[in-house]
């Protein structure tokens, strides 16, 4: 009896922009991996059939790079080299409605705070217990640790609050747990990052 071989999905995540965005990609890949889905960062072998583009929407040049990357992936889909193209991240958060009309070939658009929805697209569940579980995109001796999200400042030039929302700090317990996890994975250097560290430090100090 013939058995029909079923090709297993393999996901490639392409990350644009800053290290905060890279951490988001690492969290997404950690969640997909925990759900039994094969996932890579910037897969050079091109043996994947699904792409997630994690975009940047900060300034003109960054937006252009993100749009071009989406168009390249859409082209690959048109040529039959990809089954699905998904877009997430800051550009998508900021311009989703316009982009949906402009690039209808993209299968789904997600904002910066919609990780559970992305996972749903893969029939995967968001696993709360996996906080801090990431597939690192950096060499294994260093890693980024995001200690807060968003920004409450009102600098007149800055679009970041439009894309990342108001400031939310992680607790010291969460940060320590994540740092310990990274160290146990062999990380020697941790870079503390945030859109705005000062408010995070004030928050942490006030709590302790």
């Amino acid at each position, binding site marked *: 009896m013939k058995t029909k071989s079923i090709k297993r999905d393999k996901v490639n995540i392409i990350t644009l922009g800053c290290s905060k965005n890279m951490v988001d990609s690492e969290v997404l890949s950690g969640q997909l991996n925990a759900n039994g889905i094969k996932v890579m960062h910037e897969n050079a072998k091109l043996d994947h059939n699904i792409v997630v583009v994690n975009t940047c929407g900060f*300034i003109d040049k960054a937006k252009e790079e993100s749009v071009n990357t989406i168009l390249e992936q859409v082209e690959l889909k048109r040529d039959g080299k990809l089954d699905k193209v998904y877009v997430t991240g800051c550009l998508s958060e900021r311009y989703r409605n316009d982009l949906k009309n402009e690039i209808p070939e993209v299968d789904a658009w997600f904002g910066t705070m919609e990780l559970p929805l992305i996972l749903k697209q893969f029939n995967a569940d968001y696993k709360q217990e996996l906080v801090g579980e990431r597939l690192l995109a950096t060499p294994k*001796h260093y890693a980024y640790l995001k200690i807060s999200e968003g920004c409450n400042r*009102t600098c007149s*030039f800055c679009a970041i609050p439009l894309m990342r929302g108001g400031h939310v700090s992680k607790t010291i317990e969460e940060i320590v747990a994540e740092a310990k996890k990274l160290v146990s994975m*062999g990380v020697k250097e941790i870079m503390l990052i945030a859109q705005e*560290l*000062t408010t995070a430090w004030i928050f942490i100090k006030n709590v302790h």
Partner: protein
Amino acid sequence: MHYAYPSKFPLDILDVMRERENICNYLDMPLQHISDNMLKAMKRQMETQEIYDLVDAIRDKVPGICLRSTLIAGFPGETRDDVEQLKTFLEKVRLDRVGIFTYSHEENTSAYGLVDNIPAEEKEARAQEIMEVQQEISFEKNQEKIGNTYKVLVDKIEAGRYLGRTEFDSVEVDNEVIINTDDELPIGDFVNVKITKAYDYDLEGEIV
């Protein structure tokens, strides 16, 4: 650590940075501009003198700290005097590293209501002019490192040469240290490197 906000910066956290061996003496604090005219228009919640004082206070707390910052050139209404004030600031405070962006006029920010009056070429020219001041400073600061020995994290091997970073250099944005050695170095290990040569944005040295 990327990125701290200057206004309301909690100086006492720097005691921890100074006292703990395992925390890099490194702070990335985007200042964006220095003139009162620009700080006000950018809604930075700080005045010129306060920023000068903050840089002094940070250096008092952590002698030898590496201070990185980013700036914006060509914000609406930026005058020649504003540019000169920024250059003077860089010359006076001699930051360790500076990145500069040209102003990008972003919809739905409060500055979008201003007239983006500086032509793109002029923004680029100003950014270049400001960077040239800093390039000289970065070069001189790197020269001062010749003869010193630093603990270096071995990042990678490229074209047969090992590249690493000191605690004063963050990934991608800062100096790399070219490590001259005949030995095999494990990636992700720390080695002591005596600096023998220094360039604008890189260092070179040998294992001691």
